[in-house]
């Protein structure tokens, strides 16, 4: 990008922030509706932080402004009317690119919702339950519409309403559908969680950079399958192998030397946080901030089995997860090196005294853990759907929750924990608004720690 262009590009962004502040103030309360008040607000935001006045990059504070610009970068809007009269309070959900949000129509029947980027397809859903009695969406495609941005920042999505009887999906059918989605999500979480748990078990490290191993798999698949045009199945294999190599490199380059130095566990954990930050922004440096799609991630036809609607990618994803998890279980229980791994996780010094090469085992665990995380990232890219630089970080806490729920350091506990978290996250959307679905899983983790700190399958002695 030419420098001049980027400068030109920034100023509308600025105006959008301003607009966002204005709009938020407007929606907040009635008092902000007067123009005088709105002017005040714009003056306030213009004099924000002193450093922000001159500095082009200063609006981007660490940890502070990864998202605020996103909120109104691109907008979907529409108008909901029935027989010429606006309908108020209709819930509209927009989902796509790993982002999900919802809004309601105002007194004029209008709605508007911002999304972080304009790549890919979004699904805009009108919740028919919030329409007046006897009114449904009459047009082709019903209450769920696919929408894309063209070259503009705004896209209109209008629903046409008419009289009719709504065919509702029964609670049970919804539940089954969500549970299947949850199972799929839980299985892909399990892939990552087992790696995290094995690394914790053998080295004591709470690896915050695990999120970046997840992202790495998806990014590599994107590069090979998209940019370089390698067939997608081959791209996935290459990405998983490269993830394993990354695990090897990280252990050889960072973690083994630090273990040799005798760096304590808490400093190691902080190092992993630094590594996570550095890797994540390195990804953003090279791949940009937008969401991209893997081959076949969108627009795949759906297969209906009873109340369950799945794409063949969902089915393949679950199949791959189950096969890989069984292989990992076989590895841990049946093979010599797998048993050695568990022995090191159980009692490292005793294993070492029994002639097990602990460093070799740890190296294997890193390679395996990173490859599993990479695979998990690819599946997560299909599940969301979308590949972005921070996609791993978005589910890192869920993976930690899975590991803690199962009992820190036990591989099978991590699997059970991941399935619980996955199911809980998806099924809870029956009651919770979808932008709060992670809250439930995290709260459950905190509650489990309260009553059973060793986790569901963990042993009591593991508590300090």
């Amino acid at each position, binding site marked *: 990008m030419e420098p001049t262009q980027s400068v030109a590009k920034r100023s509308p962004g600025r105006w959008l922030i301003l607009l966002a502040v204005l709009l938020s103030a407007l929606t907040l309360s009635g008092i902000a509706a007067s123009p005088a008040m709105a002017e005040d607000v714009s003056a306030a935001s213009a004099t924000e932080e002193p450093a922000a006045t001159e500095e082009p990059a200063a609006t981007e504070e660490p940890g502070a402004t990864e998202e605020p610009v996103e909120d109104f970068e691109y907008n979907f809007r529409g108008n909901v009317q029935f027989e010429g009269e606006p309908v108020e309070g209709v819930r509209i959900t927009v989902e796509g690119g790993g982002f999900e949000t919802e809004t309601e129509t105002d007194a004029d029947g209008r709605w508007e919702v911002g999304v972080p980027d304009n790549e890919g397809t979004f699904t805009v859903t009108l919740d028919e339950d919030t329409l007046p009695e006897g009114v449904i969406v009459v047009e082709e495609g019903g209450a769920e519409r696919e929408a894309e941005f063209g070259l503009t920042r705004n896209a209109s999505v209008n629903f046409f309403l008419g009289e009719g009887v709504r065919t509702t999906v029964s609670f049970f059918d919804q539940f089954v559908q969500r549970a299947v989605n949850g199972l799929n999500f839980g299985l892909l979480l399990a892939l990552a969680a087992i790696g995290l748990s094995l690394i914790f078990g053998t080295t004591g490290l709470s690896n915050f950079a695990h999120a970046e191993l997840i992202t790495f798999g998806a990014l590599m698949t994107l590069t090979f399958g998209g940019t370089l045009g390698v067939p997608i199945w081959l791209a996935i294999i290459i990405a998983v192998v490269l993830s394993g190599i990354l695990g090897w490199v990280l252990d050889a380059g960072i973690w083994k030397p630090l273990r040799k130095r005798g760096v304590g566990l808490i400093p190691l954990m902080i190092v992993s946080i630094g590594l996570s930050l550095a890797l994540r922004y390195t990804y953003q440096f090279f791949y940009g901030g937008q969401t991209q799609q893997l081959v076949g991630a969108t627009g795949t036809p759906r297969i209906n089995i009873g109340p369950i609607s799945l794409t063949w990618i969902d089915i393949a994803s679950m199949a791959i997860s189950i096969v890989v998890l069984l292989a990992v279980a076989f590895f841990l229980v049946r093979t010599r090196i797998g*048993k050695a791994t*568990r*022995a090191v*996780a*159980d009692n490292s010094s*005793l294993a070492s005294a029994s002639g*097990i090469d602990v460093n070799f085992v740890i190296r294997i665990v890193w390679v395996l853990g990173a490859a599993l995380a990479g695979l998990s990232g690819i599946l997560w890219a299909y599940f969301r759907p979308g590949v972005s630089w921070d996609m791993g970080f978005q589910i890192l806490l869920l993976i930690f929750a899975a590991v803690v729920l199962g009992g820190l350091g036990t591989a099978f506990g991590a699997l059970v924990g991941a399935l619980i978290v996955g199911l809980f996250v998806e099924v809870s959307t029956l009651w919770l608004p979808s932008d709060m679905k992670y809250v439930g899983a995290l709260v459950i983790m905190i509650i489990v720690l309260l009553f059973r700190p060793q986790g569901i399958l963990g*042993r009591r*002695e593991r508590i300090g």
Partner: protein
Amino acid sequence: MSSSVTPTSKPVKTTGLHVGDAAPGVRKVDPILIADGVRRTFGGLTAVDVEHVEIPRGAITALIGPNGAGKTTFFNLLTGFDKPDTGTWSFDGRSLAHVPAYRVARMGLIRTFQLTKSLALLSVMENMKLGAKNQVGENLFRSLIPSIWRKQDGEIEAKAMELLTRFKLDAKKDDYAASMSGGQRKLLEMARALMSDPTLVMLDEPMAGVNPALKQSLLDHILDLKASGMTVLFVEHDMHMVRHIADWVIVMAEGKVVAEGDPHKVMENPAVIDAYLGAHHDTDLGADSEHVEALKELIDDEQ
């Protein structure tokens, strides 16, 4: 073990501590600590299963036994650092069941640890001051106003200085505890324990990793404790030391008390010889023994 370690003067042994024959669980004339039916299991392994034991007041009692006999676990149970599955135990007539460790310490039962727990990045003097009881400045709100606690802190410092001089650590008072040798840390830990004027001092392997020269002075210090009216219970492997300074010996094996008695006689007890030579060499896994399933599988494969 080094047999050159002998107390400077032959210690005066306290006798006539027990009532009746010196059998396991024998009653004491004046017990300070009584444990009844204390049991602790880790998974399938019973680490401690003590039916009845009494610790005599004003004497030095040694707790001995082979590795994995449950001595340290028993220590942890008595001092509130671990919770038994069942059992009652009392100190000075007050029940200790469900009493948290810090309250046990406040009652006057102070312990040390097998692996010394000197507070590495605190100075020796700070380590000592931390041992004192009832400090007003340890309350958050009072800590804000130095004039409230400064006088007491001065008194504590004087007392700490006195103890440090006695333990010959006074020259190191401003050094980090981390900079001291293993033996000096043992001394510091003992001196710190004395800051609270305890009635019962429990020492977990006070001689482990201490060089012979320091062992000498540690022995003298333990005898001093008795001389100043304290009761001492200690875990030790060094039999010379046990014979020299202990008034009473309790032998544990596989979690149970197998023998009690006078230090010279108890060594001849067949139960004790059996406990030490009884080839229970593979029980040295302690609390970890349930964490080795995978290792066992691995070893089985190779055989």
